[in-house]
Structure formats: C-alpha cells, structure tokens
C-alpha cells in the first residue's frame, strides 16, 4: 500500500516509476512479499536513487512484540544490501543499543550510525538566533542570544521555541520582555510543560524517582542523570 501510494506520487523520474510498476504490478500471480520489496529497493539502487525511510518514535515499534524476530532481521538484511537501495533513519530517545533486548532476535542496531542530538553548543545556539533574526529582517541582537541561551538551557526544542518568542517580541515591540518569556515557560498548558512531560515519559521509573528526589540522590545517581543530558532527557533547568 505504501509503495503503491509512492507510485502515485512519483512522477518526475521515469526510472523509479518503471521499477515500481515492474515489481508492484497487481496483475502478478502472487501477493507482494518481502522479496518484492528487496527487488524494488535493488531497482532503486540500480537507477542511483535510494529510498530513505524515516521512522520517528521507533521505540514504539520496539515495544510491540509482534515485530520481534523476523521484522528486525528484514530491517538488517535490507539495510546491508549492496548497492544501497534503501536507508533507514530512526528517531529514538536513546541509543538503539540501549533499547535493544536479546529477545528481539536480530542485532539489527549495529548496522546503524548513531548521531546524538541532545544539547546544542553555545555557538550553535547563537548562530541559530542570528539566522532567525536575519530571516525575520531584524539585526543581530546580543541580548536575544543571551536570553535564548539562558531560557533554553541549550535544549534544541527550547532553543527553537524561545528564539521564536524573542523574535516575535522584537518584531512586535522592539524590546525583549522577560516576563512574557517567563510566562510562556511556566504555562501549565504550554509547550515547555508538554516537553517536560514527554521527557519524563521517556525516563525509566528509577530515573524519574531520582529526579523527583534530587536532593537525596547520591553521587553515582547524579552521574547517571548527568548522562541523560547528552540525549536531551534531563529536563531543562535541572541542576545536578
């Protein structure tokens, strides 16, 4: 169904359409199976265009035990075929290795390269603010950069959010009002509280308990929590 949907959308490159038509022809004498998919991806590779499958929230798939076993073997085997006709890009709150359990069958995770996106560097935050202000037709503003750095705790989601708020204030009033930003951060129905809840949901019960009783946490527990910062899983504003 996915590939038939893709077939309807692909109009620019004739070669891709040919590949899809050849392998997904409904008049063929059998149901489409995994070998047909391999043929499709091999066909893509031959014409020099790889399909990129983006899956956000991969951990939800991992929780479903129906996928354990064959499915991950298929992911692994397809990801390793040469030349590459398909690439998987998975979004997870932690490293794939940390989310893997031996009952899952295939050690599919070791064909993936891990790119950790947790916290941004100070220079990256400043560049982000400069670019956003520039796009909005505003001149560079050091105060804006400082506000974004402090209010976002360099968390990527908050950097984007606070940059938007600051840019909006500068465009509307010409000045930055810290009260407005404070209110947005504290808003019980706002995006920051929602982010905090998403972060807490991604934590294990033990990690959450340590976080809730931070004043009682021992040094090793704090060190374990500090590692969460690398994945963006330490709620912004948490001081260890």
């Amino acid at each position, binding site marked *: 169904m996915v590939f038939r949907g893709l077939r309807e959308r692909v109009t620019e490159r004739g070669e891709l359409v040919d590949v899809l038509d050849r392998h997904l022809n409904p008049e063929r004498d059998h149901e489409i199976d995994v070998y047909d998919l391999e043929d499709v991806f091999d066909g893509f590779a031959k014409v020099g265009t790889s399909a990129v499958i983006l899956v956000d929230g991969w951990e939800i798939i991992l*929780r479903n035990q129906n996928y354990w076993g064959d499915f991950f073997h298929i992911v692994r085997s397809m990801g390793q075929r040469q030349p590459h006709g398909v690439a998987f890009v998975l979004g997870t709150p932690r490293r794939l290795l940390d989310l893997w359990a031996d009952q899952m069958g295939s050690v599919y995770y070791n064909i993936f390269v891990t790119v950790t996106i947790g916290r941004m560097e100070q220079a990256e935050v400043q560049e982000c603010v400069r670019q956003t202000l520039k796009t909005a037709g505003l001149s560079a503003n050091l*105060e804006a950069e*400082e*506000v974004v750095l*402090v*209010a976002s*705790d360099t968390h990527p989601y908050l950097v984007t959010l606070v940059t938007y708020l600051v840019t909006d204030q500068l465009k509307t009033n010409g000045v930055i009002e*810290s009260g407005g*930003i*404070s209110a947005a*951060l*504290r808003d*019980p129905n*706002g995006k*920051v*509280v929602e982010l*905090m*809840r998403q*972060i*807490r*949901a991604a934590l294990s*019960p033990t990690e959450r308990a340590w976080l*809730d009783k931070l004043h009682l946490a021992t040094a090793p527990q704090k060190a374990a929590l500090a590692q969460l910062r690398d994945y963006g899983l330490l*709620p*912004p*504003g*948490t*001081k260890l």
Partner: protein
Amino acid sequence: MAGPPRFDFHSDLQQAGQTAGEQEQQSRQLLRELVFSRAEHEPEFKRALAANPEKVLQEEARRMGAELDEALIQETKERYSTAIIGASEREVTKLVFDTLWNVRKSFERTLALSQWLFYVGLGLTVTAFLVGVFAPGKEMIAGIFGGGGILTLISYAVMNPLDRIRNAAANLVQIQIAYVSYYKQLNMLGGAGGDRMSLDDAVKYSSELRKGAVEMIEAVQRIVERTAPFDLRVQGSSKDGGEASKQD
C-alpha cells in the same frame, strides 16, 4: 568583572518541571478512573481489557496523553480475569486453588486419622498388657483394653489404610495436575476474544496442554499403582476385584 546574569529563567524552568510532575500524577489517576469506568459500562471494552490489558491501557494512555505505570497494569490484571470474564483474577485463582486446598486438607485428615487409629490400637494393647502384669484382679479391664487394641490393629491391617493413603496422595497429585491444567486452559481460551492469542492458537495450545496433563496423570497412575478400597463383597465374590477397581 562579570556581574550576575541579567536574565534568570531557572526558576521558570523548574516550575515547568514541577507542573509536569503534578500533571503526570493527575493524569495517572484520571486514566485509572476512566479505564475502570469504561470497563464498568462497556462490556466490549471490558473484554478487550481483560484479554490484553497492556495494549488497551497503552492506547488509552496515549489518547489521554497520560503516562502508564506498571501498578495500573497489575491492578487491571487482578481486577479483570482472562479466564472468566466478569470475575476478577483473584476470585478465579481463589476458586481453583481453594478446591486444591480442600482436597489436600482431606488427604491430610485421612492421614492423621489413620495415624491416630494405629497409635490408639497400640496404646490400648500396651495398656492391656501393663494392666494384666501389674494389676492382678483387673483381668476384665485388661481384656477390654486388649480386645479393643487388637480389634483396632486388625481393622488397621484389614482396611489397609496405607494403600488408601497412597491412593489419596495419588489422587491429590492427579487433581492438582488436572486443575492447574484446567486453569491454564481457561486463561488461554478466555483471552480468545482479544488479540493476545488467536483462537486457533489458543485451541491448539489448550489441546496440547490437555494432552500433556493426561499423560502426566497416566504416569502418576502407573507409578502409584491403585488398589481397590476394602470391599467384602468384591473380596468374597471374585478374585479379579482388584483389576475391576483399576478400571474406575
């Protein structure tokens, strides 16, 4: 010299974190109330919840934006049984294991009664002997005690309580195997309406389980050879009474 930072949003972020924690608690409670309320009013939902509590709770939690904790899953499993829809898991477990407990109790009583009978007979005989030796002129009492003791011991030998106890023990083991197997089958077949296990799979596994239980019961019967309870009519009328009783 650097002064204090001009902006401080630390307390705002901490407040947001605290609010998130509070909302998490509230949503957990709300999720619990919603799920149990729906189960009370919607039989289909209750059936799905009993068949696969993890999946249904996760779906509800996602819909509400609440977090699902292990305690709620456990509580749901205890509250709604896959074995008998309408009864709680605790009730079904109690029903099955209470029956086993009663059978076991019966076996223990039979064993205790048999031991008591033996010791009473022995005691009466020893008492008769002592009275006869050390109390001249009390022959009547010694005779009564001795007669009672010997009768008890004879009845102990004739009634063959050791075999009866062995049979009771064998029956206990067989009943336990049968009941545990039955309980497991109830769980398998009870969940067939949901998607934990397909009906075909449930029937297949249940059948295999039944076969396994029957084989085990037969093995127990072979190990502990059953003997017939004492029956004068069978003893007197035919020599193959024991064989006949094995057919029971």
